[in-house]
């Protein structure tokens, strides 16, 4: 099977050691500080134990993974210049089509590298930067050096350390002051080989009063061997800025998806994470907002649909450092066919964050007796003048609801789909229309045969 994947120009040996880390850095002709950054991170990765507080990660065999696979010599500006196999893959997913219709710019990552990049001329003229992370390191070294690894240090957790050591690809976005990017910028991540590790690194800087909406999609074909996706995403929202980050994760069910995402939000800034999780074998992902300026706001919409053999451990973290900051987490999950979903979240109100307000709402829908849903909320409120609310509901699809819809002429499956889609509606309506349609379709696919 492995030989089927000829679409690469370089592949590091299987497994990880210091040599592989150095090789990746050398291949990329990186500045020395980045090479040192990687090596320090690699050490931290070795020292940190595997986290055992969440999903079962014992199936990950670090020795069996390819950490770096370069599919193409450079980032192409035209889809036609890509090798046919890669181009066909994106055609099937519909990215070139979507680009024409409603996107401001696209980055396509295949295995370890960004292979295609575009940005509308009109946006480029306004000073907006949207390029691959590797390209950014070479072209905008000062900006990268200033922010890289500052929001999520390598020591944050074992997989952030791993990413910091072997990162490759990902997006870099800079939106200058007062500029509002009207069309979404999209990145699409694809793992196409077995035993592949994808470690993209994304950094988004939204300057004062600027706005951007970034959308990422992910997918992979299914192989008998597991793959690992461990990304790090750092976002900086400056005073009065606004960033929305939308993810539709549809990895195949043999991918371990262990991602660290965090935004630093300054005065009156707004960060919104819209996080949709449908695929993967295991996901552990808790997008975070650090509300570091007065009046900063954070909003996290988390969605999970866990089917057979899947364990989706999602949620969010809101850290209130300053007064008058507000945050809200809305988490919705569906468990079916033996799948397991969990909400795991942290609300922290630091001393002095007066009038901070936070609200968490978790709703879980369990479709059958084999499936499971759990909630693990943590609140650390260290300021008395703050309000933290938490609501959680767990429901099954009611017999009454099913009967009601069936008595109107709908089949049990149609009825169930209507109930499930209704349950997800508060999140789906936040997505751009094209994604909402796609998401409903994917949920429908997952539900095939879920009712006896």
């Amino acid at each position: 099977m492995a030989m089927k994947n000829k679409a690469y120009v370089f592949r590091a040996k299987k497994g990880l050691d210091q040599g592989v880390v150095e090789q990746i850095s050398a291949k990329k002709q990186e500045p020395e500080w980045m090479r040192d950054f990687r090596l320090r991170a690699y050490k931290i990765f070795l020292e940190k134990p595997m986290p055992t507080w969440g999903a079962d990660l014992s199936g990950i065999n670090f020795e069996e993974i390819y950490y770096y696979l370069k599919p193409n010599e450079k980032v192409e500006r035209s889809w036609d210049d890509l090798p046919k196999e890669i181009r066909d893959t994106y055609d099937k997913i519909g990215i070139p089509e979507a680009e024409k219709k409603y996107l401001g710019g696209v980055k396509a990552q295949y295995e370890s590298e960004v292979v295609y990049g575009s940005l509308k001329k009109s946006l480029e003229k306004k000073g907006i930067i949207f390029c691959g992370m590797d390209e950014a390191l070479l072209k905008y070294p000062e900006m990268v050096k200033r922010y890289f690894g500052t929001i999520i240090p390598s020591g944050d957790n074992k997989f952030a350390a791993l990413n910091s050591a072997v990162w490759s690809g990902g997006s870099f976005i800079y939106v200058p002051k007062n500029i509002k990017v009207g069309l979404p910028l999209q990145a699409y991540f694809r793992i196409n080989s077995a035993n592949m590790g994808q470690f993209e690194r994304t950094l988004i800087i939204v300057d004062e009063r600027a706005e951007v909406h970034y959308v990422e999609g992910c997918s992979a074909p299914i192989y008998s061997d597991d793959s690992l996706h461990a990304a790090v995403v750092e976002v900086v929202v400056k005073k009065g800025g606004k960033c929305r980050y939308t993810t539709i994760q549809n990895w195949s069910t043999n991918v371990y998806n262990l991602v660290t995402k965090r935004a630093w939000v300054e005065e009156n800034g707004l960060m919104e994470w819209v996080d949709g999780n449908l695929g993967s074998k295991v996901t552990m992902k808790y997008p975070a907002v650090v509300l570091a300026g007065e009046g900063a706001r954070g909003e996290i919409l988390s969605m999970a649909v866990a089917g057979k053999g899947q364990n989706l451990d999602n949620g969010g973290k809101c850290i209130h450092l300053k007064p008058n900051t507000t945050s809200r987490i809305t988490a919705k999950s569906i468990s079916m066919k033996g799948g397991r979903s969990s909400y795991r979240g942290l609300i922290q109100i630091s001393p002095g964050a007066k009038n901070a307000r936070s609200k968490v709402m978790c709703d879980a829908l369990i479709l059958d007796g084999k499936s499971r849903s759990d909630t693990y909320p943590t609140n650390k409120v260290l300021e008395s003048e703050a309000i933290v609310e938490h609501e959680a509901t767990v429901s099954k699809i009611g017999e009454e609801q099913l009967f009601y819809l069936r008595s109107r002429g709908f089949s049990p499956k149609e009825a169930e789909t209507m109930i499930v889609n209704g349950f997800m509606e508060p999140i789906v309506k936040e997505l751009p229309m094209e994604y909402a349609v796609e998401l409903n379709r994917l949920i429908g696919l997952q539900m095939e045969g879920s009712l006896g």
Partner: protein
Amino acid sequence: MLKIGNLEVKIEGKKVLAGLNLEIKDGEVVAVMGPNGSGKSTLAYTLAGKYPNTGKILWNKNDISDLKPEERAHLGIFLANQSPVAIPGLSVNRFLWNLYKVRKVESPKSLGVMEFRKWIEKKVENLGIGGELLKRGLNDGFSGGERKKMEILQMLVLEPKLVILDEIDSGLDVDALKRVTQVVVDEVKNRKMAVLVITHYSRILKYLKPDRVAILKAGKIERTGGWELTEEIERDGYEK
């Protein structure tokens, strides 16, 4: 035509309907009245396919006892529920359009989405439903009266041949009751829709003017008569 013969239904081992007989012809309005616990709602649900039964439920001469709820709906049987459930997030607009697409009627008018919307708007006005209700989740946070009107709106979309009104009057004020019953009466007149009105009080019957009134007691039809029966119940109660 609906013909129920010797209908028995057990719920959790307890016989709730015990040999019930009833007949409703096309274009007829028949009221079933009875005290609490007499089996009224069980009758309504059983006809819609919620509970298994013994005996016969003949609908146009075919026994539908073993049919699923959706199959009965496709044959033109509609239950307007006493307390309709909510489906949060399922917008009324979308739901009604789905209903329109799933219904099986003999001579379907095939409206496009926009024409259908316009058609709905007219009906909504007739029923006195606030237009903003159509954008909300089905029955989600609706008042009792709003839910009842929503049932009747669904009835209009589906164009059933038999409608079972289970305590449709509760939650409706006099004006709303007049509007709702007028809509039902029009359907009876125009399409010869058959109506089974299940009610505790005779109030609604003033507007629906049933052809016959049946008194249900302990799971059986105890008496059948005309309008005078409702006056008697009004005066003496069910206990006489």
